[in-house]
C-alpha cells in the first residue's frame, strides 16, 4: 500500500467529490485519477522507469500534485525544484540527481524560450501537457513499499545542497499520521501555503486527498500579501491550513485578522521553525475557536514526527512550547555531550530519532549517511542524529531548545552557515568568508564577514551572492573586513566581529526566525 493507492481509492469510491483546485483547474477525484494515469502513461512512453528521477520544475499547482502521483505510479522518484532559487543552484540539483526527465511549467518554459535561456542543458525538459498520453496505455503500477518516493534537496555542509531520499513506507506513515492527528476528513478544505519544494508542505498536500478532503492551491504570489491570504480563506471556505511560524507573523499585524473568526477555518498547523507563545495569544485573541497544532520533524525523518495540539492552558506556561510526543512507530532518544542516553525530565540533550519515518539516505552521499544514521548510540536500533537540542517535560512532551551545530532556521528552511560560507568563498572576488547568526530584532539574522581580493562594494557582493544562493540564505549583512579577529585559542572571534559591526549576539534561548 502507498499514498497513491489511498488517493486512487478515493477516486473509485467518490469520483465526483472535489479533489483540488488552482487558478486554472478545479478537478474531482475521478478527474485526478484520469490526469495521473495520462501522465503515468506518458512517462512510460518517455522511457521513465522505476528508480529514475523526474525533476518537477513546477510552481504550487494541481499539475504538481498530478506529476508527483504519476511518478509514484511508474515507480520514479520525484525531485521538486525550488522555482525561486537561482538558476545555478537548480542546475546543480539537476546535475546531481541526473533525472530521466524534467517536467516544467509551460508558462516558465515559454518565457525561457523567449529569452533564449536553456533551462537545463543536456536534459530532456518538457511541459506536462506534452508528455500526457491516453490513460489506457499507463504501465502497471509499481508496488514495492521499499522503493524511494521522493528526493528533496536541503542545505548541506558544502556549497551544494544534499538530496534526502524518502521511501514509500516512511512517506505513507507520515501522511497517515498527519491525516489522523490533524483530524482531516471528507469535509476538510485545505489551503496550501508553503512551497512544494519544502517538505513541510507535504503535511497538507498529500494527507488531505488521502482523507478525502479537497485542496486549494493558489500560486505563491497570490498569497504574498496577508489580505490576499484572508480573502482566499473566506472565498474558498477553507477549513484547514498549515504554514511556518514566520508566515503567521506576517498575518498577525493585519487588520483583516479578526475576519478569520467569520470563516469556516477550524485548524491551523505550524512547522518548520519555532512557534512562540505570544504569537498564538495574539492569534487566539482574534480567533478564539481556532485549534492549533505544533509539528516538528527534520526532512530526514519525513515531514513531521510529532503533531501536538496546543491549548491556551499549555501556551500560558510560556516558551519553549511543546512539540509533543513522537508519532506511533517513532522513537526519541536524548543523548548528552558524552554520547550517553539521558532520560531525566528537564535534562537537555541532543535528539536522535528512530522508527518508521527514517529516510533511505542521502543521494549519492554514503559518507554523510554514516555520519548521521547511527547504529552505535541505541543498542539494536538505527537512529538519525538531528543535532537539535530538546528536553522532555514531566508530562512526557518534548520541547525544542536550539541547534547544536552551525545551522539556523529562517522562513521554515534549515540553513547551513557552512554552506553560505562555502558559496561566498567560491566567489572570485573573495579570499575568505565567515558567517555568524545574530539577533535581528528578535529573529535570526545572518552576518557574513568577508575578506576581499579586490575592492568591492556591498551591493556588488550581494548581487554576486544572489547568483549562488536562494534569497532565504543570503546574508542580511555583508561586512567587508581586512581580516578576522581571533580568540586566544586561535578560533575566529565571532563575538568581536559582531560587536564591531554593531550587531547583537544570538541568545541561547529559542529566538524567532525572521
Amino acid at each position, binding site marked *: 500500500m502507498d499514498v497513491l493507492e489511498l488517493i486512487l481509492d478515493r477516486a473509485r469510491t467518490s469520483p465526483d467529490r472535489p479533489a483540488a483546485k488552482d487558478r486554472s483547474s478545479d478537478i474531482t477525484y475521478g478527474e485526478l485519477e484520469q490526469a495521473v494515469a495520462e501522465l503515468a502513461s506518458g512517462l512510460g512512453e518517455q522511457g521513465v522507469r522505476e528508480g529514475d528521477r523526474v525533476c518537477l520544475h513546477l510552481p504550487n499547482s494541481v499539475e504538481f500534485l498530478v506529476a508527483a502521483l504519476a511518478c509514484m505510479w511508474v515507480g520514479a522518484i520525484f525531485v521538486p525544484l525550488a522555482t525561486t532559487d537561482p538558476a545555478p543552484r537548480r542546475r546543480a540539483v539537476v546535475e546531481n540527481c541526473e533525472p530521466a526527465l524534467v517536467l516544467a511549467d509551460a508558462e516558465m518554459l515559454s518565457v525561457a524560450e523567449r529569452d533564449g535561456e536553456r533551462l537545463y542543458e543536456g536534459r530532456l525538459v518538457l511541459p506536462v501537457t506534452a508528455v500526457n498520453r491516453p490513460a489506457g496505455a499507463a504501465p502497471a503500477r509499481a508496488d514495492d513499499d521499499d522503493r524511494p518516493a521522493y528526493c528533496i534537496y536541503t542545505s548541506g555542509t558544502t556549497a551544494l545542497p544534499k538530496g534526502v531520499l524518502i521511501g514509500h513506507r516512511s512517506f505513507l506513515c507520515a501522511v497517515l499520521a498527519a491525516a489522523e492527528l490533524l483530524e482531516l476528513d471528507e469535509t476538510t478544505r485545505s489551503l496550501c501555503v508553503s512551497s512544494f519544494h519544502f517538505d513541510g508542505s507535504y503535511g497538507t498536500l498529500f494527507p488531505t486527498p488521502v482523507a478525502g478532503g479537497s485542496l486549494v492551491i493558489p500560486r505563491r504570489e497570490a498569497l504574498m500579501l496577508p489580505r490576499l491570504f484572508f480573502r482566499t480563506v473566506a472565498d474558498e471556505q477553507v477549513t484547514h491550513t498549515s504554514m511556518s511560524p514566520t508566515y503567521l507573523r506576517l498575518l498577525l499585524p493585519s487588520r483583516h485578522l479578526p475576519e478569520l473568526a467569520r470563516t469556516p477555518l477550524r485548524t491551523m498547523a505550524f512547522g518548520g521553525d519555532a512557534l512562540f507563545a505570544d504569537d498564538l495569544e495574539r492569534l487566539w485573541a482574534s480567533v478564539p475557536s481556532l485549534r492549533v497544532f505544533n509539528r516538528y520533524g527534520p526532512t530526514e525523518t519525513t515531514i513531521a514526527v510529532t503533531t501536538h495540539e496546543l491549548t491556551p492552558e499549555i501556551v500560558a506556561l510560556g516558551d519553549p512550547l511543546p512539540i509533543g510526543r513522537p508519532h506511533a512507530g517513532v522513537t526519541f532518544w536524548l543523548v548528552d555531550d558524552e554520547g550517553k542516553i539521558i532520560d531525566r525530565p528537564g535534562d537537555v540533550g541532543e535528539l536522535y530519532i528512530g522508527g518508521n519515518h527514517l529516510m533511505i539516505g542521502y543521494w549519492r552521499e554514503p559518507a554523510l549517511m554514516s555520519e548521521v544514521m547511527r547504529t552505535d548510540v541505541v543498542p539494536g536500533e538505527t537512529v538519525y542524529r538531528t543535532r537539535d537540542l530538546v528536553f522532555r517535560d514531566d508530562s512526557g512532551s518534548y520541547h525544542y531548545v536550539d541547534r547544536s551545530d552551525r545551522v539556523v532556521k529562517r522562513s521554515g528552511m534549515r540553513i547551513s552557515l557552512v554552506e553560505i560560507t562555502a558559496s561566498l568563498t567560491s566567489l572570485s572576488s573573495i579570499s575568505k568568508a565567515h558567517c555568524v547568526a545574530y539577533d535581528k530584532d528578535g529573529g535570526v539574522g545572518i552576518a557574513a564577514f568577508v575578506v576581499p581580493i579586490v575592492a568591492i562594494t556591498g*551591493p556588488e557582493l550581494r548581487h554576486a551572492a544572489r547568483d549562488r544562493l536562494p*534569497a532565504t540564505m543570503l546574508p542580511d549583512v555583508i561586512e567587508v573586513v581586512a581580516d578576522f579577529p581571533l580568540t586566544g585559542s586561535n578560533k575566529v572571534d565571532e563575538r568581536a566581529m559582531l560587536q564591531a559591526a554593531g550587531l547583537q549576539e544570538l541568545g541561547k534561548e529559542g529566538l524567532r526566525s*525572521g
Partner: protein
Amino acid sequence: MTEQDAVVDILARETALSASDLSSEWSLIDLGVTSFVIVRVLVAFEDHFETEFSVEQMEEVVSTPVAQLPEFVRRALAVGS
C-alpha cells in the same frame, strides 16, 4: 514627509539595506531581500499610502530597481486615485 521620503524610509526600516543599496539599480530580489521582507515592505506601503496593490503591481515591485521604487509607487498611486 514627501512621498519619496516615505518610500525610502519604509525601505530602510523594513529591509535594513544600506544607503548605497537603496540607491542602486538592482531590484529587491537581486539584492537578496527575502519574500517575507518584501511582503512587509508592500504591507507598509499599502498602510502608509492607504492603497491596495494589484497582484501585477506586487510582482513589479519585486523586480523594479530599488532606486526607482519611489517613482513606481508614485505612478501606482496616480493610477489608483
